[in-house]
């Protein structure tokens, strides 16, 4: 059902309004305003879950307003089964980030909350944009807030981590802009994502475009070997920053692959599948091995993210229904589980001021509630049946099995390794022998912290036990994506001449002449 109510614009505007309000507020009120704004956003997002029609194959809740006339760029938004769970996850994670920063952030709270709220707008915008330039604007606009988030409120080595994050992701995404512009001239002079997904492009061009898309999305995911910014950024970022990075930012890369690379460049995607699968498997195993070696909790989870995101890209690029559905589900699962783990690390850091495993040993005795929740997230992270990650990873592996048995075997290694590093971490942190000088400082979770973690724990089991509502909502969209990949190929056509006056289709040429440049 498509309602005329501008749900998605409301989703974008609320956090921005909150950010403006925070600017005029006092430091102490800033927290409450930010919490109210993010909760309001969640309240707007939640009904979409029920209003969303799982049977419909087109975009829903669409909005369309012309923005720039030459070239035609529009403010067009819409949701399908792929973006719906991601938008909901974003809206759900942000209030938790505000709660997690309640006492952890002590300097310029207003600035921090404003940055968080601006981030929320841009992140939701990335998932709902249906115009490629609009998407790019949101994609890039998030960079400065994230740079500030890491650089201003981060750890001791924050300057290095912040600029590394900034330059890595910017370097990836500038090539995306060139690719978008090239697509515009080949794809019938439009930036409309749906129209561009219907177009057919010469095979050689697809290769270049795929590489440009890859530069942007692989850095963001991050895929091996472009992952080196991630551990630095995660370790130095404040807790909320780590959660946003892991839960939402990384998903934008995978979302980009799914929304743009696969439907727009199907031939190149098929050609690159072996490479992408190999890179994904390297990421799964390498990330897991690196996680084994870490002594810093945040770094351990950061490398486990590399491993888990390997499953996501693996599922996407085996190019079948099970794989892609598993990948989308796994994106949400990773957001919930890893978000939860980072929140747990943040909670213990506030007490012991150390993220080292060695300094946080034996928490089961002083903090029983905390230990239980940490163990739940840990078990979910290793994919225990009954938790959310099991469903996602299982679907991905089924999909991979249809593509290659060897690849499946290699990827499964990652699950075994995950069990090793996670259980080993839990063994030390939860059940180790506590260090006596810490014990007096350790209080169990207060209500705020419990409220931060409880929704995520609930979701761990909800998705783990009843995955069907989640999968059924994305089913139609994934079918569409796969169908659009197998659309009839058109023989490679001549590219538009260098002068740009003879584009792909004759009628476009006529259009160009009558309407002037950039039409």
């Amino acid at each position, binding site marked *: 059902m498509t309602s005329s109510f501008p749900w998605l614009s409301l989703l974008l505007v609320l956090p921005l309004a909150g950010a403006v309000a925070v600017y005029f507020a006092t430091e102490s009120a800033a927290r409450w305003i930010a919490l109210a704004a993010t909760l309001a956003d969640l309240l707007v997002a939640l009904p979409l879950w029920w209003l969303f029609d799982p049977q419909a194959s087109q975009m829903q809740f669409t909005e369309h307003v012309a*923005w*720039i*006339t*030459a*070239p035609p760029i529009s403010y067009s938004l819409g949701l399908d089964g792929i973006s719906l769970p991601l938008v909901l996850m974003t809206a759900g994670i942000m209030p938790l980030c505000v709660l997690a920063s309640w006492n952890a952030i002590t300097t*310029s709270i207003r*600035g921090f909350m404003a940055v968080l709220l601006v981030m929320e707008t841009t992140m939701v915008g990335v998932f709902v944009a249906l115009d490629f*330039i609009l998407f*790019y*604007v949101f994609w*890039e*606009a998030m*960079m*400065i807030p994230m*740079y*500030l988030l890491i*650089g*201003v409120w981060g750890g001791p080595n*924050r*300057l290095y981590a*912040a*600029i590394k994050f*900034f*330059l890595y992701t*910017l*370097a990836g995404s*500038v*090539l995306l*802009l*060139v690719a978008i*512009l*090239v697509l*515009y*001239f080949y794809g019938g002079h439009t930036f409309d994502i749906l129209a561009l997904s219907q177009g057919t492009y010469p095979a050689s061009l697809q290769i270049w475009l795929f590489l440009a898309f890859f530069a942007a999305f692989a850095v963001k995911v991050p895929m091996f070997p472009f992952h080196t910014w991630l551990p630095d950024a995660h370790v130095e970022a404040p807790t909320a920053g780590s959660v946003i990075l892991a839960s939402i930012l990384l998903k934008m890369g995978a979302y980009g692959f799914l929304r743009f690379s696969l439907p727009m460049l199907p031939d190149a995607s098929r050609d690159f599948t072996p490479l992408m699968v190999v890179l994904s498997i390297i990421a799964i195993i390498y990330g897991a091995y690196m996680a084994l070696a870490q002594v810093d909790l945040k770094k351990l989870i950061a490398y486990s993210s590399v491993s888990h995101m390997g499953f996501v890209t693996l599922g996407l690029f085996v190019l079948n229904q099970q794989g892609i559905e598993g990948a989308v589900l796994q994106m949400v699962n990773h957001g919930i589980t890893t978000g939860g783990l980072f929140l747990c690390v943040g909670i213990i850091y506030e007490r012991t001021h150390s993220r080292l495993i060695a300094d946080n040993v034996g928490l089961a005795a002083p903090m029983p509630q905390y230990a239980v929740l940490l163990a739940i997230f840990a078990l979910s992270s290793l994919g225990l049946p009954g938790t959310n990650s099991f469903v996602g990873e299982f679907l991905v592996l089924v999909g991979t099995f249809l593509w290659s048995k060897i690849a499946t075997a290699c990827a499964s290694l990652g699950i075994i390794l995950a069990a090793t590093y996670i259980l080993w971490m839990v063994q030390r942190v939860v059940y180790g022998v506590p260090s006596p000088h810490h014990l007096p400082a350790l209080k169990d979770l207060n209500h705020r912290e419990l409220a931060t973690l409880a929704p995520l724990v609930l979701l761990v089991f909800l998705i783990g036990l009843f995955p069907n509502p989640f999968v059924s909502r994305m089913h139609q969209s994934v079918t569409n994506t796969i169908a659009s990949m197998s659309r009839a190929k058109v023989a490679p056509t001549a590219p*538009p*001449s*260098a*002068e*740009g*006056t003879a584009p792909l289709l004759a009628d476009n040429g006529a259009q160009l002449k009558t309407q*002037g*440049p*950039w039409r």
Partner: protein
Amino acid sequence: MSLYGADLLALLPELIVVVTACLVISLDPVTPASRRDLLAWLSVGGLALCLGLTGGQINSLNIRVSAFSDLVVVDAYARFWKVLFYGVAILTILMSLPYLKAEGMHLGEYYGFILLALSGMMVMVSGVDLLTIYLGTELMSLSLYVMTGLNRSKPRSLEAAAKYFVLGAFSSGILLYGISLLYGAAGSTKLAAIAGAIGTRGADDPLVLIATILIAVGFSFKLAAVPFHMWTPDVYQGAPTSVTAFMAVAAKAASFAAFMRVFVEGLGGLKADWSFLFLVISVATLVLGNVVAIVQTNIKRMLAYSSIAHAGYALIGFVAAGRGVGLSGATPGLASIMIYLTLYSFMTLGAFAVIGMLRKGGIEGEEIDDFTGLAKRQPLAAFLMLIFMGSLAGIPPTAGFIGKFYVFMAAVEAGLAWLAAIALIFAVVSAYYYMRVVMVMYMREPDPSSIAPPRLVASPALSFVLACAVAGVILFGLFPNPLVSFALQSVLTLK
């Protein structure tokens, strides 16, 4: 007199600017030092009058008035630039008011020179005869030489003026030499006649080619394109900051405007030759500008290199225009330069306004380190600088992104996707040094030992300038439509 009545009427804005300039200069000696503000307001008043005159015609795109037997023309293209120059000049004067007082050199003739330089720029964009354009260029340059050396007590200012004068005179000589050779080949200095002569003599005439190269070199000096950029860092650093802003924005835009008219209207027949020449120059310019800016510690010097890099980006639009077929193929490229330079004006003026009024104990804080911890002391000033830096780096949703977008759009349309890719990769390099300013403002703790940390000294005039600049950066970043359609239509009046 009646003979020239219509001609003079066409040049009414120029006349108003010149008369105001003469008034300011002649009133200066009889104005007591305490009331010199009035001279600034007089200048602003004259400019506002011009803005009304030219701005009133802004929607009549087809009005094209030739004057003085086709030496100058007032068309939509010229009006586009003139409106931009009025705006920049008004903002520069308002920015100068507090700045000159703080520097202790509040001189009346300063405003006169701004107006004279402005009249030179107006002649440059209206000229359709090489000698008229040359005269405009010289009027602008001579005024700028004086303004650069205005701070007589500062050796650096004098050195900058001397350097600027010597190199500027040298480049003017080269430009004039090219013009004289072209006159020899074409028998005229009028752009239309030159275009006709090139059509009949053929494009591979060596005389025409040499003349084209010399003119290209002459303009490259004014645009500060590599390898003719050597004067820029020293002059930008040495000149009073308000003058630097004026040079970086208005003088550069005027040079681009005249340059585009000369090469499109006059030398359009040679575009296969010059588009390759400018391809090389644009890549060299944006690579060198961006890379050398990284190592600068003085922010004015850094912005000097950044302005070199921005000239490189704008030149990409020109290369794209050269690759297009006919004038309609050149439209996107030329329009993208107009859009780019207009948007660049806002962010650069804003950045220089902040720099000029960031004072530590009476001295201008022009080192990047002087910005340390500004976000703690003056969050609003730091936030404005953040917006200007983000815009210069081309991060959406600021105007800087829109400017780059249109330039790269034109480049890709002309089949230069690889050039756009190179340019964008160097935009990442530029993001590093722009973000360094953000970094010192937001992420470094101020030195606790310093007694008087640099502060932005606020004043109503400065606030107005900053408000205009930030409004331009944000509004054009979000709603570029009016500017884009205006530029697209204005550029069509180039013949």
